[in-house]
């Protein structure tokens, strides 16, 4: 395509500093985000290994209970804010301008800032591990009054959350500005690829909820150091109010962690089924309704705080309502595969795995949504099983699918298909070995966030631990495949995949630093 001619007369060989530190190029920033996310994935993963090593058998073997609790808290914060969210932002950076036919993100300098805030935020968060009183240990949900007992680490945690929030808000404003203003002529809203749509909606969710989290943690900070009593009963406040504010952010946040994944899968499945996506517009409307509903279901995390009956009923039914648009999506993916001429390259394997295992997580979510049943399930391993099913074989598998799917485009090299398939099957077997038994111990009453447990839970915990070590090791294979592909490999064609459709596949592989300087025309 003429618009995609190599255009490297400016900064052909920028130095390392210019290329990576002060860069304003969406592709380089995308790469930075993705590499940062991979690093955090391993840091958070190492913490998960500590957790599972301790839970391998009952009793206290390796770590102090306080440190164990720091591990669960830090693992969650790092995986959510350091691994999954930056991975999605990295993908947005790389893909959105290419998918809508724009030359870059709308606000390139802001883009540089959004990324470079993150290493500082996480250095600050990780530094709390070495502080007197230890890293935060009250859970990623930071409920007062427990969280107010955090030692010197407390203000550092709060400020690092502020920084992460600022970074995501800036990133989201950038995404919105890009999508609304940088589209090529002819690319109407309802012609946008689904990844772009899901990100547009995610960006609005982020803009609307991250500030609420910032407010909530600021209130914690002033409660601890400036004698306010937002959440202190002695001063006329109410600790339960924190939970309302937190989950008003928290539930939309879980959709922030999954909507871009829906977008990714909606690209991969049609490509390998060699059929257009079934029900494009219903996908867009389903995404929008999920986003809307996500604001009115938050108290399903709080069924046990003593809400009146009407509250329980409202939040129970509104939560179940979300299953409807989610079901529409699953239906559409299956309908897309129906009678397609399917092949199962690694991205497709991960995408199909996503559809099946994410749906399993959705089912356990529905069980938790039944208010009377949740009194039994709440704060047990059943909840842990639920959210890991939607987040690991859900969000993380989608991110890996995206990695395999677009890596040949980004690097110009095909990854090693055999190793990719190994990575998929090992991950799938081990992820289920890790998280499936958690349903059983959860139903039997094993509480979450404890370093020790009663004897009857031993077998399932040992299985989960073995699964998690296997899963952790398998991810080293992923890192290996990615670096191998960056360094070399079979040359990828421009279209890369036979069934691939969309503007990004019309560009050379790898694309030159500047693409679509002259916007393409969409028929």
């Amino acid at each position: 395509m003429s618009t995609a001619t190599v255009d490297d007369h400016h900064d052909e060989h920028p130095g390392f500093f210019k290329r990576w530190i002060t860069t304003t190029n969406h592709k380089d920033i995308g790469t930075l985000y993705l590499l940062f996310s991979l690093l955090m994935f391993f840091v958070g993963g190492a913490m998960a290994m500590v957790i599972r090593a301790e839970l391998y058998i009952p009793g206290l073997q390796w770590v102090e209970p306080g440190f164990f609790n720091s591990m669960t808290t830090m693992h969650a914060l790092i995986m959510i804010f350091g691994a999954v969210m930056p991975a999605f932002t990295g993908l947005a950076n790389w893909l959105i301008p290419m998918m809508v036919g724009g030359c870059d993100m709308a606000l390139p300098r802001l883009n540089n800032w959004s990324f470079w805030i993150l290493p500082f935020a996480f250095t600050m968060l990780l530094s709390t591990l070495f502080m007197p009183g230890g890293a935060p240990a009250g859970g990623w949900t930071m409920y007062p009054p427990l969280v107010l007992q955090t030692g010197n680490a407390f203000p550092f945690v709060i400020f690092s959350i502020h920084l992460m929030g600022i970074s995501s808000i800036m990133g989201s404003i950038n995404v919105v500005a890009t999508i609304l203003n940088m589209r090529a002529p002819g690319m109407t809203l309802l012609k946008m690829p689904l990844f772009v749509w899901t990100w547009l909606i995610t960006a609005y969710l982020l803009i609307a909820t991250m500030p609420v989290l910032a407010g909530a943690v600021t209130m914690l900070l002033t409660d601890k150091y400036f004698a306010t009593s937002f959440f202190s009963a002695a001063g006329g406040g109410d600790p339960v109010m924190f939970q309302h504010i937190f989950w008003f952010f928290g539930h939309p946040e879980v959709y922030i962690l999954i909507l871009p994944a829906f977008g990714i899968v909606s690209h991969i499945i049609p490509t390998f089924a060699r059929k257009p996506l079934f029900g494009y517009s219903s996908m867009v409307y389903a995404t929008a309704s999920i986003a809307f509903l996500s604001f009115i279901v938050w108290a399903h995390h709080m069924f046990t705080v003593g809400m009146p009956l009407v509250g329980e009923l409202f939040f129970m039914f509104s939560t179940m309502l979300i299953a409807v648009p989610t079901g529409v999506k699953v239906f559409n993916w299956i309908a897309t595969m129906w009678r397609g001429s399917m092949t199962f390259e690694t991205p497709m394997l991960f995408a199909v795995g996503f559809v099946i295992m994410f749906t399993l997580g959705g089912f356990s979510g529905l069980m938790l949504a039944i208010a009377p049943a949740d009194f039994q399930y709440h704060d047990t391993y059943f909840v842990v099983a639920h959210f890991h099913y939607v987040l690991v074989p859900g969000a993380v598998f989608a991110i890996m699918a995206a990695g395999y799917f677009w890596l040949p485009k980004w690097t110009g090299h095909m990854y090693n298909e055999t190793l990719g398939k190994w990575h998929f099957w090992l991950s799938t077997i081990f992820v289920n070995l890790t998280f499936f038994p958690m349903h059983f111990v959860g139903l039997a009453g094993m509480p979450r966030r404890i370093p020790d447990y009663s004897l009857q839970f031993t077998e399932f915990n040992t299985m989960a631990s073995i699964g998690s070590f296997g899963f952790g090791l398998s991810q080293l294979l992923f890192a290996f495949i990615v670096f191998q592909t960056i360094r070399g490999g079979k040359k990828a064609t421009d279209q890369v995949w036979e069934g691939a459709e969309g503007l990004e596949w019309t560009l050379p592989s790898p694309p030159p630093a500047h693409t679509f300087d002259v916007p393409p025309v969409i028929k």
Partner: protein
Amino acid sequence: MTDKKATTVLRSSFIALAMFGFGYLMVPIYDVLCNITGLNGNTEIVSTQQEVEFEPDMTRTVKVQFVANLNNSMNWTFEPEIFELEVHPGQRIVTNYTAINHRPDAVVGQAIPSVMPGLASRHFHKVECFCFTNQTFAAKEERQMPVVFVVDPALPEKVEVITLSYTFFDVTETASVTPFTFEVPAGG
């Protein structure tokens, strides 16, 4: 930056700022909601201004249970004189709580009441209560503290048991900085 882009950026930033404000706005909203409905079981912490005089409804009895809690690490004993009473709505009831400070120094305590079921809290009127002000206990002091209350006859029929619970908080530190007062009925 083009005008259109600037508008998008300004609008999005405005939403972000507004939502930060909304996070704080949730605090008064929550307070007001809870005060109107009593959803979270918070009852008036100041005495009901006008005298509550009702015609006692001798045909109906409601069980009132009394609970006493201490916030953690408070070296006190705190308990109700009686754990349970059968009362007629509209009757004026007096009961006592006893507290002992085991510490060798003075402690300022503040009791925070809570009524279950939450929706009954609007119909539970405390005429006199040690929770209306903070309570200074000298070293090793023991004291009986009365509670006078009336259950409103308008209490919904289906409520048969009301639990009144108090939690004592050590507010010695904050109390010495600023005198501890509840200017507005604390809800939230």
